[in-house]
């Protein structure tokens, strides 16, 4: 059967890739082992978080699905770092896993040009270095591009103490044959590990001894298209481990697969199992545990912070040592999972596999972790696969444009030795890369690509127009008497009349304070806050812009794909090898590779000048 594109896997990366391809008009097949695992949230029941919330908004701004889908299944929403500055605020939403899955499956089914196929993909068809299709359940399907989004399913096994299963997450079937086929095609695969805590019955928990954690009904949702706020929110609960919990773990540590050598895969540092936390931070007296709902009014709860691969009897003992969990009953035990994935240094910044023309990949297969990281890559891989079909140059988002740019550039330039998680600390231009302005940064690009429909474009233009009007209104002068009046409410005194903008530069003046000074039509507190941020960060934003402009010059110098780095004698050996492995697309990318010095870059520059003449 003939398709233009085939997407392998229908997790958070796969669905974005498939939707992007189909929406851009390409006949697309999406292959999943089991329809029930479409957009399955195999671990925590939430979307967003620090850095990750930015990714969701960026995916949305470009015309992706994650934000809309999350909003439709929200149980609670919170602005993390809400008491700090705008640049470090991130949205996090608790979501109903079943609704999230149902909605996405419905969206896939309702999308033109998109066909869902259940079954195991066993091989990728490659001819003369170019991808030609895929084999599913013994049958060949032809296509010009293929996007690999296999998540944690490739030759995976789950581990709970001595119990080891040849299976995917949550008891789903895994992919048994594709790993060997990809290895045979020369793809550099390796083994990573991650884990998840137990799911327990909601009615076996004593919430009365825990701290209730509520959401915030005054904030916006993920998508720029979602109107209104989430009023009906479901709470989470906070409790802690204690000395008894730690004693149980320590006494049984020899039975932990992570410590007795059963597990070989590399796990993420930011997602440690509880046994890891206890062993590495022995002096910490307690660790937080959040009890989060899996579905609305459902029977299961997720026990965040208690990820483990200890045997079942130990899990029962340690969970039940926690306040409020004394009588807890297990629905599913915690487990660790090992899986195959690719070394992302084998990828181009377009997420195309260097060794196979037309083969793209995204998500956990690329060595990342997290639903949001997966969705962001899935969207970009889908977009670039579509552009490959259309003979257009790939869309590469820069580090100063979006967290998506940081994520992909980090993966394909620096590589990663553990499942990669987005963190705000990774973004060097984070004052500019705020979650509130994701649309201003990316929606015009999404429009150009073709994923931003008229409705989104109209909404964006209206919002943008209002922001421009606000910027203009901020230049209005305010008479001294009025300034004095507002200052007085803050216990400050004013000596001069000034513009609204000048007032906002004072740390004690907020957008809410100046709202009454604005024309009636512009009194939108959300927008006013966003524009006020630009004023408050003023000089710092300029600083970032200047750094970005400098970096840009280096990004504009494209390195020929055919450069023979190994024979460049003036380069130090380490630099030669690193450059040969990464094969950077631009001089800027080359300069970010660890082990490549400024002197090496100078040598490269000279080489370029010589050969380009």
């Amino acid at each position: 059967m003939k398709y233009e594109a085939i997407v392998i896997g229908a997790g958070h990366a796969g669905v974005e890739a498939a939707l992007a391809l189909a929406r851009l008009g390409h006949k697309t097949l999406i292959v999943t082992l089991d329809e029930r695992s479409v957009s399955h949230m195999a671990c925590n029941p939430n979307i967003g978080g620090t850095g990750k919330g930015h990714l969701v908004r960026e995916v949305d701004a470009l015309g992706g699905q994650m934000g809309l889908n999350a909003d439709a299944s929200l149980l609670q929403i919170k602005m993390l770092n809400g008491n700090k500055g705008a640049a470090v605020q991130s949205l996090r939403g608790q979501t109903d896993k079943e609704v999230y899955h149902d909605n996405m499956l419905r969206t896939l089914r309702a999308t033109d040009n998109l066909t869902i196929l259940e079954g195991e993909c066993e091989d990728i068809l490659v001819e003369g270095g170019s991808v030609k299709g895929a084999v599913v359940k013994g049958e060949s399907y032809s296509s010009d591009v293929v996007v690999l989004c296999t998540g944690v399913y490739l030759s995976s096994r789950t581990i709970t103490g001595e119990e080891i299963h040849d299976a995917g997450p949550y008891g789903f079937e895994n992919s048994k044959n594709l790993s060997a086929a990809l290895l045979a095609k020369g793809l550099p695969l390796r083994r990573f590990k991650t884990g998840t805590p137990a799911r327990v019955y909601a009615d076996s928990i004593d919430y009365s001894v825990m701290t209730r954690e509520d959401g915030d009904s005054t904030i916006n949702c993920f998508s720029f298209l979602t109107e209104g706020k989430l009023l009906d929110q479901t709470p989470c609960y906070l409790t802690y481990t204690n000395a008894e919990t730690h004693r149980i773990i320590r006494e049984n540590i020899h039975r932990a697969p992570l410590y007795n050598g059963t597990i070989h895969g590399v796990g993420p540092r930011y997602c440690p199992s509880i046994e890891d936390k206890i062993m590495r931070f022995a002096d910490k007296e307690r660790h937080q545990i959040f009890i989060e709902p899996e579905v609305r009014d459902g029977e299961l709860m997720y026990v965040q912070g208690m990820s483990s691969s200890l045997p079942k009897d130990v899990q029962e003992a340690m969970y039940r040592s926690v306040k409020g969990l004394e009588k807890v009953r297990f629905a599913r035990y915690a487990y660790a999972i090992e899986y195959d994935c690719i070394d992302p240094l084998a990828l181009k910044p377009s997420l195309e596999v260097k060794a196979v023309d037309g083969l793209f990949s995204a998500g956990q297969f690329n060595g990342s972790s997290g639903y949001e990281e997966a969705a962001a890559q899935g969207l970009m891989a889908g977009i670039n696969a579509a552009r490959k079909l259309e003979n257009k140059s790939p869309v590469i988002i820069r580090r100063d444009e979006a967290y998506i740019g940081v994520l992909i550039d980090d993966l394909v330039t620096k590589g990663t030795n553990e499942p990669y998680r987005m963190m705000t600390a990774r973004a060097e231009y984070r004052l500019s890369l705020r979650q509130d302005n994701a649309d201003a940064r990316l929606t015009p690009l999404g429009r150009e690509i073709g994923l931003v429909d008229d409705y989104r474009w109209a909404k964006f233009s209206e919002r943008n127009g209002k922001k421009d009007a606000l910027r203009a209104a901020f230049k209005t002068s305010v008479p001294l008497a009025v300034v004095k009046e507002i200052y007085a409410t803050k216990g400050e005194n004013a000596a001069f009349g000034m513009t609204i903008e000048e007032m906002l530069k004072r740390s004690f003046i907020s957008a809410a304070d100046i709202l009454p000074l604005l024309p009636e039509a512009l009194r939108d507190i959300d927008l006013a806050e966003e524009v006020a941020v630009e004023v408050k960060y003023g000089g710092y934003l300029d600083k970032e812009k200047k750094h970005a402009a400098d970096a840009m010059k280096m990004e504009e110098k494209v390195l020929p794909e055919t450069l023979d780095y190994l024979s460049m004698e003036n380069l130090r050996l380490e630099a030669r090898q690193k450059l040969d492995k990464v094969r950077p697309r631009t001089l800027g990318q080359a300069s970010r590779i660890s082990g490549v010095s400024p002197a090496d870059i100078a040598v490269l520059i000279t080489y370029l000048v010589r050969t380009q003449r």
Partner: protein
Amino acid sequence: MDTIAAISTSLGAGAIGIVRMSGEQALSLALRFFSSPTVKKAEDVVPNHLGLGTFTSGTLREKCMMVYFRAPKSYTGEDMVEFQVHGGSYLVTRVLEAVLSAGARLASPGEFTRRAFMAGKLSLDEAEGIRAMISAESDAELREAYSLMSGRFHDRIEGLMQSLTEVLSTMEASLDYPEEMEDEADDSMEKAAAVKEEMSTLLSSYDAGKLIKGGVTVAILGKTNVGKSSLLNRLLGYPRAIVSEVHGTTRDVVGESIVYQGVKLNLLDTAGIRETGDEVESIGIERSLDAAKSADVVIYVSEAGSQTEDEEISKVKDVARKVLFVNNKIDILGKDATGINVSAKTGEGVDALLDEVLRVTLVDSRATDALLEERHADCIRRSLRALEEGIDAFKKENTECVLVDLRESINALAEIGGGSATDKIIDDVFSRFCVGK
């Protein structure tokens, strides 16, 4: 693009030294220091013409040639200015320091060439020449790396970076894991303040480092006829200055250099200080005080056993940075209880005096750590500036701006040793804090 500057001739040898600037601010920076009868403002400067004028910065006032290349017709394609001054490392370095302190940034290795390339200005022939230059640069880097690694300097920079990384990773961890860092104590700003102190110390040791390269200036002061010129001649090992019994023999400052313990000492003999009606002599005394002012250390000579008047001491102490009190003529007058006892005539105590000169000028300012290159000083200066802004932003509770400043501060330091700040910070977050679920 910011404006960069560097010395483009080799330091030390050579009759002429060139300091080069490139960037938007090149001309306006240049004209803060350069003036000539025909050049008073930017419009007066004719591009591609070499003009003679004066370079003035603080006490520095030197004849200087300046040439301006207007963008895009320059090596880098940007506005460029070159200063040509008399050779010798001291002068060229002072000119560079002046433009750096006015806002130019020290060019990193190969940066002029990189800019030229970015502007599409390099031809094949030029590229050939630059290849040689690059390899020369890496040789220099190797030498530098060797000498730095053998010293404690590298460790100190590493130590500073580690402290800053800890400050930053604490803040980053609490931002990336807002719900999990509640119990962590935060002494970040105390740590940042300590780093700031240490950087200032390092920079002042840079001045000591300069002393090693440019030499230590030692002025010999004292009343008339206490044997200053005899002491100079003794230090030099030959009779350079005229010595006589007549009070006020030395009328002008006499300068000569010696090398002691590998350090160049620029010795200045001065006119003796006394009330005088002689106009020439009184001008000489003025100059003595000027010499004391410019010297790194003053040797104040008096006759052993004589009472040094308080007024005299305070007059010298007012103008001098450091003063060593020396009792001369101990061969005939005997030793004093305080001060350094020497005999210019027999040479007794002279080495002890020179040791003391080195001790007060170099050791006290930690010159053992101070083998600083201008490039390093520039990095530390920028790092310090960013850190100060960060501490300021912290006081205003702009956490995310503090992060921007601290990162800039670390990155400036990282330029000395290389390595990515971001990776270090993230590693530090996970090794120090139990975060993540």
